[in-house]
């Protein structure tokens, strides 16, 4: 955390660095170099008081998160590694196949279990497919809105955002009725004599549902970025003879790089850990790990394996988040020297 060092170059850089959106950044707290001895100046005392104020104000949400996410997660990590005391005592006593004593045995057992590996593969496959489709669709909607606009563009962008307002339970269920043996797709196909495959209770329906629920956020992110692209840039490219394809690939999408990474990360994280969509629309086997976590906990009574699975999912989600964090930090660093727009 170099940026927290007072008066350091990093801090100054952040203060000037501004953001990808061109919003004013936080001002530098201390104005001059700190004197090595003597009493602090009024300015320094003020700056320190503000830092303490800042810390005090963020305490509340941090405390909530540490207490109700941090503690259980650390505890779960220890539990999955074989520490069965403390908060996990009750679970360890009730659960079956509990491993006592520090070891990676729980993870070893899971990773040697073909059913689990198949579910892991299904989870990753669904996540990749859903994320790819979501981002592609979002880009299409955003590009139509940006380059074509008008009634069609606006309607599409509103339509693509609708799912954010539909509770996931309803979304999953309506997608199931849409794709199952007597669903719309099969009915419509039957009208014209095509035998559409049954997608309900298959991984296809899970991908359908995941894209459906993830699309709005991706559209909001990417369309927001494209709408902010100056007309002059597009016209300049057009004047230079660029086709629509080239405008999209070489002007619009590079401008939306960071929001696209953010959208990708949120989609990956959301789909990886999703429960409701695969629970309603997916098959019994292979299933997504979000469903497995719940099944192992409630139905199979194996809380230790259930928590270990959560960490395996978390490892993948964390990997995706690193990409996101690096990308936003880098894009902010790129803005250095441009000054406020």
């Amino acid at each position, binding site marked *: 955390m170099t*940026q*927290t060092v007072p008066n350091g170059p990093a801090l100054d850089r*952040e*203060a000037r660095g501004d*953001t990808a959106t061109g*919003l*004013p950044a*936080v001002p*530098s*707290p201390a104005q001059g170099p700190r004197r090595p001895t003597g009493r602090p100046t009024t300015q320094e005392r003020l700056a320190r008081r503000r*830092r303490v104020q*800042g810390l005090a*104000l963020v305490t*509340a*949400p941090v405390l909530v*998160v540490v207490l109700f*996410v941090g503690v*259980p997660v650390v505890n*779960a990590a220890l*539990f999955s590694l074989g520490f069965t005391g403390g908060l*996990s005592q*009750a679970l360890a006593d009730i659960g079956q196949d509990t491993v006592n004593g520090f070891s990676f045995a729980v993870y070893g057992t899971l990773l040697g279990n073909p059913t689990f590996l198949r579910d892991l593969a299904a989870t990753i496959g669904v996540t990749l497919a859903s994320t790819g489709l979501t981002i592609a669709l979002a880009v299409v909607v955003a590009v*139509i809105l940006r380059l074509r606009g008008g009634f*069609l563009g606006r309607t*599409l962008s*509103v339509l693509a955002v609708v*799912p*954010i*307002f539909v*509770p*996931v*339970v*309803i979304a999953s*269920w*309506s*997608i199931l*009725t*849409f794709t199952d043996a007597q669903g*719309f797709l*099969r009915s419509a196909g039957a009208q014209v004599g095509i035998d559409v495959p049954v997608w309900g209770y298959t991984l296809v329906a899970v991908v359908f549902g995941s894209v459906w629920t993830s699309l709005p956020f991706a559209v*909001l992110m990417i369309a927001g*970025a494209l709408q902010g692209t100056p007309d002059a840039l597009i016209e300049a490219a057009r004047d230079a003879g660029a086709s*629509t394809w080239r405008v999209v690939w070489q002007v619009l999408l590079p401008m939306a790089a960071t929001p696209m990474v*953010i959208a990708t990360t949120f989609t990956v994280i959301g789909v990886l*850990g999703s*429960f409701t969509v695969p629970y309603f629309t997916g098959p019994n086997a292979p299933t997504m790990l*979000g469903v497995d976590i*719940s099944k192992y*906990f409630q139905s199979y009574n194996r809380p230790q394996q*259930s*928590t270990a699975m*959560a*960490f395996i999912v*978390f490892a993948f*989600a964390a990997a*995706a*988040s690193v990409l996101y964090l690096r990308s*936003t*930090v880098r894009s*902010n660093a790129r803005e250095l020297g441009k000054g406020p727009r």
Partner: protein
Amino acid sequence: MIKRLTGTALVWATAVVLAVFIAGPLLWLAVRAFATSWTYPNLLPDGWTLKWWGTVFQDPSLAVAVQNSLVLAPLTVLIAAVVCLPAAWAISRIEFPGRRVVLVGLFATNAFPKMGLFVTMSAMFTALNLMNTVTGILIVHVLGCVVFMTWLPAAAFSAVPRSLEEAARDAGAGRWRTFWSVTFPIAWPGILVAMVMSFLASFDEAQGTYLVGAPAYMTMPTAMYSLVLNSPRQVSAVFAIALSIPSVVLMTLARKHIMGGRLADGFQIR
């Protein structure tokens, strides 16, 4: 000319596919709420009726679920706002040690799979006697809003021009007065978006509520779980429509702000 036409055709084809993809499932479900029965492969039901609406509204347990949801969601937003908004202001305005760690740390709560979190949380809740309590449910719901309620308002506060605040201070306004009559009104749309997102997150939360609250406290989404599994499809269709009403109302109210790129701005790390 031909190129332009193919382009237009392509755009329209995309639009139609997208419309079917997004609106199709919802319409297909909504029609069911008014259907007597449905024979495959007809595209319309066999007959029309309103009797399923009666079934839903006469079910006392569903009424309780509606009531619970309508109390819990605003309460969640209120608590989340009280807990998070001062922090959002601090993140935007004060360079304190660990500022980015806080932002990233709050984000990280999103990365851990929800189901895994609830499972591990339930051990702690059992120890703290929070299972089957309103407090327990509220904790689960507030956790779901923390990221929205800090990141989005922080961006909204950052977007307030400092020169305006300074002008107000120069004109003799105190800190509070400056905040309430300059900073807050300008930041309000962003905060509103955060509140809408939080409301929806709370209203939508099913997994954690089910694990912590069921069967003592059922909300609309958790009631929907059992409804889908245990009753005729028409009944769950009716309930689904009822469950969408608050969201649709909120959408029409806040659409302008949500679509205006505020969400996109809010998720940049600064």
